[in-house]
């Protein structure tokens, strides 16, 4: 190989922060080249995707709306991934959260009391948390790989949702459309900014960021989670209950994803429909990595991911591109990130740079 990887004596903190930025720049460049090859002006195309959607107040409001579910899912993933538990099931947990919230909401349409909305949210949290706990239970008691089980639960959740909107939750007066009845006003999340769709869900998401931040940075349980992730045998030796930690992290992560689902059906959508998420749960995986599993990093990464979703829609309208361009940009971003992350643990030695292996190791601090 013409490039040589030289291990660093110590992981580079600087690189850990630079890598997402570098990945973003590489994605932009590749995206530009890609637009150029498609016969578009690359600068105009990138501007259309990444600036035009948020160039007015309405756009900024929509950014908040789209950030909410992504942020909720990703912040939960931060905590499971820290424990090295690979919950790939945020998507399914979101769907079940939305389903559970809807199941309650359509039964309390007439209720005008103030408890309706919190109850709907709690139903969503409970649904998502239980769905995640199922995978946690299979992992701790039967040693079943959580990557595969959570993925399978995503497909099962999607089919359950589709079954429900065609069956038990279908609006009896809905002309046979696969949709639930519209929720009662008391069940809906209040709108925060007039004339926009910004709803109280964003407050829940920001609150979650703060809570998870404190939990990870300041609490004993956060410390245990981090130790478990870094060295499972050390955690066991220290007497930490690793199975309990798996349950707790999955509970939090599933609950937050469930809340995201409840926030979607009781927020911008207002009813249960077959498609309540364009893959927010999967996008949240990218966001969690991009944000370095740190709550603040994840906040910024969620905004970026929401922007990519909006940019994809804008590119569809303005540039006549397929909507799938969103997924393409997401995948590229994650790939570049993984490649750039190599720089955290390694130095790249080019063949034309001389024999400085030893000195470069000594330079590390």
């Amino acid at each position, binding site marked *: *190989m013409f490039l040589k*990887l030289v*291990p660093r004596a110590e992981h580079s903190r600087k690189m850990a922060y630079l890598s997402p930025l570098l990945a973003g720049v590489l994605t932009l460049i590749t995206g530009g080249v890609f637009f150029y090859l498609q016969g578009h002006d690359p600068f105009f195309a990138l501007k259309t995707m990444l600036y035009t959607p948020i160039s007015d107040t309405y756009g900024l409001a929509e950014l908040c709306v789209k950030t909410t579910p992504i942020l909720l899912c990703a912040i939960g993933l931060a905590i499971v991934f820290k424990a090295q538990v*690979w919950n*790939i099931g945020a998507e399914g947990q979101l769907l079940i959260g939305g389903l559970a919230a809807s199941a309650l909401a359509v039964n309390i349409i007439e209720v005008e009391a103030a408890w309706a909305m919190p109850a709907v949210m709690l139903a969503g949290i409970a649904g998502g948390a239980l769905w995640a706990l199922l995978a946690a239970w*299979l992992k701790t008691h*039967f*040693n*079943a*790989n959580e*990557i*595969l*089980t959570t*993925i*399978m*639960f995503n*497909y*099962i959740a999607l*089919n*359950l949702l*589709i*079954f429900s909107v*065609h*069956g038990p939750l279908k609006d009896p007066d809905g002309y046979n459309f696969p949709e639930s009845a519209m929720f009662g006003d008391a069940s809906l999340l209040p709108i925060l900014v007039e004339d926009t769709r910004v709803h109280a869900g964003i407050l829940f998401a920001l609150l979650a960021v703060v809570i998870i931040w404190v939990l990870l940075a300041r609490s004993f349980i956060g410390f245990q989670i981090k130790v478990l992730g870094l060295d499972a045998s050390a955690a066991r030796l220290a007497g930490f209950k690793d199975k309990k930690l798996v349950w707790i992290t999955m509970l939090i992560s599933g609950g937050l994803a469930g809340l995201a689902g409840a926030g979607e059906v009781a927020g911008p959508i207002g009813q249960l429909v077959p498609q309540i998420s364009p893959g927010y749960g*999967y996008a949240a*995986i*990218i966001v969690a*990595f991009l944000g370095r599993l740190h709550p603040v990093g994840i906040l910024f990464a969620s905004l970026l991911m929401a922007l990519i979703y909006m940019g994809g829609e804008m590119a569809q309208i303005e540039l006549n591109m*397929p*909507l*799938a*361009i*969103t*997924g*393409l*940009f*997401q*995948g*590229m971003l*994650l*790939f570049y990130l*993984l*490649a750039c*992350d*190599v720089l955290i*643990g*390694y130095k790249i030695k080019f063949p034309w740079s001389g024999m400085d292996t030893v000195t470069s190791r000594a330079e590390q601090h």
Partner: protein
Amino acid sequence: MDIDLITNILYAMIRTGTPLLIVALGEMVCEKSGVLNLGQEGMMLMGAVAGFIATWLTGNLFFGFLMAIVAGVLMSQLFAMIALGLNANQVATGLALTIFGTGLSAFIGSGFVGNPIEGLDVIAIPFLSEIPVIGKMLFAQDLIVYLSFVLFGVIFWFFRSSRTGLIVKAVGENPHAANAIGLPVMRTRYLAVAFGGAMAGLAGGYLSLAYTPLWAENMTSGRGWIALALVVFASWRTERILLGAYLFGLASILHLVAQGLGFAVSPNLLAMLPYIATVLVLVMMSRNQGQSKMYAPISLGKPFHAGT
């Protein structure tokens, strides 16, 4: 239940199990060399879309399958570059490959959704296909099904009797020892990943060129993931992959069985069955930790640095 129904169910079981068999065989070879590639779904989708577009443009199914394989190999090398070349985390890289492949295939294929093509024809072998019940199932299939039988035989032989098969296993069990006796660890792993990619591409092509035959976004619907579970179910043994693939094939067509028997169950609920079966199988196989550890390649998923 009459004979015709059983005959047709068995026939459909093989057809449905074939893409699973092909991907799972490829992934097993890859895992035997110590590399866990979770990108099967992404590679399959790329194979499906590349094969479909190539056939749509040229009208040539053979060329379509070739392009499906090429697409699978290219995708697998993207994984290999990052996971093997740059020593990145294999789980994260595999996930990235699936997310990227899902996005890229949807993008490339967006202009081709709903286009019809002439799918792969069934070739009935004279006399043999006339055998009651099993004749149609084994001898009235298309070329790729027959090819999958051959691939199964070759891989079975490869790990049982060939020297190269032994090298692949050595590299997956103990890369350091393999390296010490001069076996090419990295080259073996790159090739194993490429083989896995070719098989995933072929399986994807089978879906879009023979099984359906059409292109739709996300048309693999989790088959790549089911194949990963299948390898665990099979405890990394070739003959059990065959068994597992057809069992899952059967689980996926249970709605046909239900219809045949006159049950009225929601198709959406029946659509969950293969996924539920996968979870159950994983639970059954993983319950005994010692046993599952015994069969898994010891160095599965661990990066290898020569000289450490």
